[in-house]
């Protein structure tokens, strides 16, 4: 079993935003993509995924709309808004800063 890690809520939001930067996607697809991109280390519990998506929508960072997928089935697509794009850039920078600092402390002898 691949090791799994616990995710903080803010981090999940960041990952979702990143996923959507690569293109609009429906809920299941977002979860699967994150899994794939992290080599299965990160597995999003569905219980966290949809609440996170609704929260992001409430904050105006993503928008959703019903559409028909290539396979011809009905899906609810989520996509980034302009505010979401701006927020993502800021969150990513902030994350980088944080993780570098943590890494630095851990590597100190």
């Amino acid at each position, binding site marked *: 079993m691949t090791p799994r890690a616990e995710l903080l809520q803010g981090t999940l939001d960041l990952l979702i935003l990143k996923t959507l930067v690569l293109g609009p996607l*429906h*809920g*299941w697809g977002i979860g*699967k993509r994150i899994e794939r991109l992290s080599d299965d280390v990160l597995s999003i*519990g*569905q*219980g966290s995924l*949809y*609440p996170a998506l*609704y*929260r992001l929508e*409430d*904050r*105006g960072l993503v928008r959703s709309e*019903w559409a028909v997928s290539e396979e011809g*089935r*009905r*899906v*609810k697509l989520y996509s980034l808004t302009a505010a979401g794009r701006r927020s993502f850039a800021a969150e990513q920078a902030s994350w980088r800063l944080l993780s570098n600092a943590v890494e630095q402390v851990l590597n100190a002898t």
Partner: protein
Amino acid sequence: MLIVHRLRRRLRALLHRAELEREMQEEMRLHLEEETEFLMRTRGVSRSEASRLAHVSFGGVARYEEHGRDTRGVRGLEEFVRDVRLSLRLLVRSRVFAVVAVLTLALGIGALSATFTVVNSVVLQPLPYPAAERLVMVRHAAPGLGLEETGLSSGTYIHYRSHGTLIEDLAVYTETTLNLAGEDGAERIHVTRAGPELFRLLGVQPVLGRVYEEADWTGSEMDLNWTISILLAHDFWQQRFGGDSTIVGRVLDINDSPRQVVGVLPPGFGFPRRETQVWVMNMVSGDRASFARSFEYSAIGRLRPGASVSDAQAEYERILSSIEGVYGDATPSRMAEVQLAPVILPLKEVVLGGADRVLWTIFGSMLLLLLVACANVGNLFAVRGENRAREVAIRTSLGAGRLALARLFVAESLIVSVAGAALGLVLARYAIGLLVALSPVQLPRLETVRLDASTVVFTAAIAILATSLFGLLSLLRHVRRVQLGPVLRAGRCAVGAGHSHRRMQDAMVAAQVAFTVALLIGTALMLRSYTRLVGVDPGFTAAGVLTVHVGLPYRLAGRHRELYQDVAERMRGIPGVTSVGGVSALPLTGGGAEHPLRATDLAGRGGHADQPVAFRFIAPGYFQTMRTPLLAGSGFRPGETSEYRYPVIISETLARRLFSDGPAVGRQLVRLNPDGEPVAMFDRTTRTRVPLPPYTVAGVVAAIRDESLQAQGGEAIYIPIIEPSVERSIVPTEMTFTLRSARPPLELAAAARRAVFDTDPALSIAGIRAMEDIVADATARERFLAGLLLTAGAASLLLGTVGIYGTAAYTVRRRTPEIGMRVALGASPRTVMGMVLRESLTVVLLGSAVGLALGLAGSRLLSSLLFDVSATDPVVMAGVTALLIIVALCASLAPARRAARTDPTSALRAE
């Protein structure tokens, strides 16, 4: 904008709840399906196995849905809406409760909202002029001349205007009635003489033409053909000239002088009164101004921002003292004699003239009525609450917290209150129309009364208060001590339980009684006042008398005696007329001149010997027609001559003051001019000023209440119009003829009109009214108040009775088992009845005591409106309390009798 975005989402969430729910479920379902297919592909399991795995990894769907809903952010509101829906269903099931509660509330709210609308429009709204709160009226008190309240003289006006700094733009005006000539005959019109400052002060813009200005004052007053500029009132322009747009520039004949129309004023403008039809330009000239010759001018001005009324009055007092020597008659002795003092009042106060007292009284009584109605509805809620005790217990045991219960009760109160308020608003609309139609003519600013946004806001506020009140009441009863066990088992509350329930009901009934008693005290006082007023003997008999108000143009002034006598003769000839008389100003109509008099043989008797006295001309036959008792000497019937050369008749009050030492008949009087000297006329033969010959008292009549019914009969002198003339220096240009007949007075109107115009078509008729109507107008305000209070009081009494009956009946029903037990143990029917009645009586007595206290406090505020009745009249207090006790006993009688007839076995079995 995030807030907008969020609000829009909330709104969507509220409105499209069902749709959003479906979408969410659809999304979850699709997710599960995709996961299932993914698992089938990647792990090669069967569909059912994949589906099971998918569901397991997904977890409880419900939880996510809850989460999802939470983030939609409208949880609390959604649940409240659900509560409202539930309450609505429950209310529909108990239709009787809902209907009675809503109707009762609607009655109370409607009455109060209607009254509020009137109070708001008349009393609270500012006058319709710019910076109206700073407008003031300037008057004088001249105690030295016996004048409590009088206007400005030309000299004081000019002096204040030039030296005063705290009042801007002081403007004066006088009012009179004049003859307007026309093809169909002359018409009597209300005229105000004023300068252009008045219109500047009031910020009026004409709808046609322009307002006259200083530049229009070009002629000289000696020039009879000087065409003075005038302005027309809008309604007058419509009615008399058909709204003719070419009216500007037309010259009208007013009192035989040419007057040119320069403009028409906007509709709704009516200063100083609604009836004013024409404004004639008049500028006060400094050349002939005097200090204290006559105080005919009314004056208004605007306070400078920041100046108060008392500041302005103090300034004017200072300025007044510096008027000495500025005018010929402003001598130190004259100033000391007159004792002039300026009095400044806010204009609104003068316009309202005490009407605010009347209106607030009505508001207070309607408020009491609403409180009674609310207590009634509160009682209904209380009773209903008891019936739902079981339901509440079940909810509580299922986990409904206090908040959830509270929400349910509030939802119910809200529905009832909102429904009651909405219906009340509809009722108010009709009530307002009724109020305005019934109100006395003298109530100012009635034309501005309109149901508008402020009424709606007021009603909404009441609805909110009512909601809180009823919600609170319901809460208090339940959330405190709901004992689940016994309640659930018993279904209805068992014997002995429910103490708190009863106490709250009793409190409601006591409250109703208290408010009703307070209201009825006010009502009784007002009714008593009204009956006393109507019973006053005004000094004449009004029934059967028709009055015809006739005006004379100046050019006919020389022939006035002949013309008036002709009219009177013609009127005597009308079939059905038993007697005819006339007077220059009718009592209770507020007209008429006053002049000071002095008895010649008592010259120099101190005090207010020179007090002004009502001065009237009469056409012989007046006292007989009006049935005013003649107390001494002659009353001048038609055709009667007198042994005296200059005979006059005086009222008994005047006789008592001037001739307290003996009979008045035969004694002599002189009329004084404003300087306190006997009036003198210029005699052409001797070319000097010769004092007029003194009058001789030929008769004394009973005092007539001239000013109002409330004021004591005044002092008056009556000059008969006979040959040779008694009074040469004053010509009465108006004469109201009085006709007595056995037929209804108004039937004679047409014949009377013909009698006037047959005598001379230049005579004008200002109005024909039955004397009874004029007297009725004098009591209109009291009648209005008494009528409204009576209605409110009756409604309140009815509601109170229903409340007492309801409570008694309910108590009996609930205590049936207990009563059954008592009867089984040997209690007689009388004892049982006594028990029930005693309970009712205790509550009523308590309520009455509180109500008496309330009523006593409130009636003190009424005292200015009462006539001949003390605000603490013990008869009224005792009467009202007794009434309520009797009503309470009667209302409790039926339930008490029913209790007495309780069959013990069936009562105990029902438990």
